[in-house]
């Protein structure tokens, strides 16, 4: 059963179209991510799902029920705000119990559920504190508890981790995934952080400029993006521009200049014709280096010169100028047996055709 269905929803703020015909379906118990750059309309989409903004077109269904015109109170959703919005004047107990109190549940029931929820998020005994007396990570958990205690149809999270320091953020990621796995709650998670999305999502929807570009599993989005925007946005990809010089049933040849070209398998996702200008994308970690004098031969090897090396701890980031005139970057793990190159070294670069994505340029 689909937990949430958006049908061509639109939102205007004055003349700007913040959300433009977004349609998507989220399955029961899914951890679904809305990913995109700042200002692309993620928050607006989430707020429309919550009912805090009215749609200007389209329909929203939660568990099959049309909620397009319902107020937030009637949608049985829970929203965790980016700033968590814990009531500063209420204790943790009253914050978490607020929704239950609105449902007129008896006080003893509320207290029991609050206590239970604080166990779930790992903050037992914090009932009587005020939000201002908690750390950021603890406040985040209280906000989560306040949402979970209502047992909502949908849990909506708007960049809930972006106010935390890196370590806490990483810990909260796995805790959120763990809580989600245990409670099995349909969750919509908004973020602009692609590593967060790749690490946590069942599926990711990528948004740009109010539009939904594509939906897929983290693997699909990362390895075989549909659109050029996704290819550029996700991961650290190298892009090389060339022209399709030959197309066969299985292979297509992309020529960069007189004496360098690349053979990549034909992709049904991205059909091209001879003469098309294309961009070839390949992830930085998918490139391989060989010594300049190594006897490699064959297709898809390029001569290059190391221009710059950046030490990143777990990897070295090499910038290499290719014979085609373009510069590519490659992340090489700093393991013991990895060969080391110095600035100015000449080497051969292998672009594995299986990992090359060849997308036709827009006219």
């Amino acid at each position, binding site marked *: 059963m689909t937990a949430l269905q958006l049908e061509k929803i639109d939102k205007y703020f004055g003349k700007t179209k913040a959300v433009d015909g977004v349609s998507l379906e989220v399955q029961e118990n899914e951890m679904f991510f809305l990913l995109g750059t700042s200002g692309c309309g993620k928050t607006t989409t989430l707020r429309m799902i919550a009912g805090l903004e009215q749609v200007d077109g389209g329909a929203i269904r939660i568990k099959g029920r049309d909620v397009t015109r319902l107020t937030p*109170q009637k949608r049985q959703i829970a929203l965790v705000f980016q700033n968590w919005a814990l009531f500063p*004047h209420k204790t943790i107990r009253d914050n978490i119990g607020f929704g239950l109190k*609105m449902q007129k549940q008896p006080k003893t029931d509320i207290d029991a559920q609050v206590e239970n929820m604080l166990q779930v998020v790992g903050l037992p005994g914090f009932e009587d504190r005020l939000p201002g007396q908690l750390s950021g990570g603890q406040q985040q958990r209280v906000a989560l508890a306040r949402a979970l205690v209502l047992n909502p149809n949908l849990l909506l999270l708007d960049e809930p981790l972006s106010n935390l320091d890196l370590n806490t953020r990483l810990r909260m990621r796995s805790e959120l995934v763990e809580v989600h796995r245990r409670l099995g709650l349909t969750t919509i998670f908004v973020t602009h952080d692609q590593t967060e999305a790749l690490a946590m999502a069942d599926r990711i929807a990528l948004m740009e400029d109010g539009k939904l570009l594509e939906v897929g599993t983290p693997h699909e989005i990362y390895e075989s993006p549909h659109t050029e925007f996704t290819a550029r946005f996700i991961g650290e990809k190298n892009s090389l521009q060339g022209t399709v010089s030959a197309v066969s049933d299985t292979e297509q040849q992309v020529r960069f200049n007189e004496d360098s070209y690349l053979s990549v398998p034909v992709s049904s996702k991205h059909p091209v014709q001879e003469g098309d200008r294309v961009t070839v994308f390949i992830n930085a970690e998918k490139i391989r280096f060989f010594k300049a004098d190594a006897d490699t031969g064959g297709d898809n090897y390029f001569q290059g010169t190391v221009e710059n090396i950046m030490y990143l701890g777990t990897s070295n980031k090499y910038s290499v100028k290719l014979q085609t005139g373009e510069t590519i970057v490659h992340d090489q793990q700093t393991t013991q047996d990895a060969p080391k190159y110095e600035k100015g070294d000449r080497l051969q670069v292998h672009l594995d055709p299986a990992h090359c994505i060849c997308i036709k340029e827009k006219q």
Partner: protein
Amino acid sequence: MLKQKIADLLEKSTAYNRYFLLAPPLLFIAAFFIIPIFWMIRISFYPGGSFEYEPGFTLQHYLRFFLDPYYLGTALYTLKITMLVTPFVIVFSYAVSYLIATSTGKKGAIYLMLIVTPLFTTEVVRALGFKIFLAKHGIINTILLATGLFDEPLQLIYNDFAIVVALIHSIIPYACLVLIGVLVGIDKSYLEAAKTMGAGRIKTFWHVTLPLSIPGLSGALVVSIIWCLSIYSIPEFLGSGAKYTMTMLIEEQILSVFNWPFADAVAAILVFLTVVGLAVSFKFSEKKEFK
């Protein structure tokens, strides 16, 4: 921008620099407020009476104030006016501020203009305005007679009613300025959070907006108390003349009777009452300040 710069400057400055920067206003306050008040308190202990007093120490002026029912009555009358006016000020200014803080676009700005405009006139002008407004053949009475509900004009002026109405009217703009700031500052996401958790408008107001506006309410309380205790022109122009507020008593003692030590003693008591009023309101708001 400028505010930010000053804040940065203060942040960076050492303690020494900070006092250096604060010196001009501190000196100003010391010269024109603190020293005169201590001077006044000193004179209130000098023996003497009308036209004459000499250095010394006596409690005679204070005893006179507290033992004479007439003088003590001015204090009680002042407090009575304060207690009549303040609840109305709080309720009215809260309602108006809430309207302004929640109205969108140009409407809010227009309401705010309407609230602030009376502040362009002085207290005396406003008191005289009320004199015309509430007079026997003033606007209010003309309207009331025209409706046929009354056969003869009501006595709306030269009584407590006139004082209370004019005071409420005078204080509301100041109380509003305090309250609007606090109400506008309440993060919308608190209200939205309450909504998503099933609270309707009234419950959201009661559980979220109202408690979060307590700092503003106590500010309005302070404003109201200070005004009620210290205002002179309104009771002077609109009162019956039979009952004196403390400010009127002070004026009379200084300008008509020339009993400066006694006037100073009354003024010192008034300052003391004001301080107590402020302390109580701060105490009230202290527990309700949130981070």
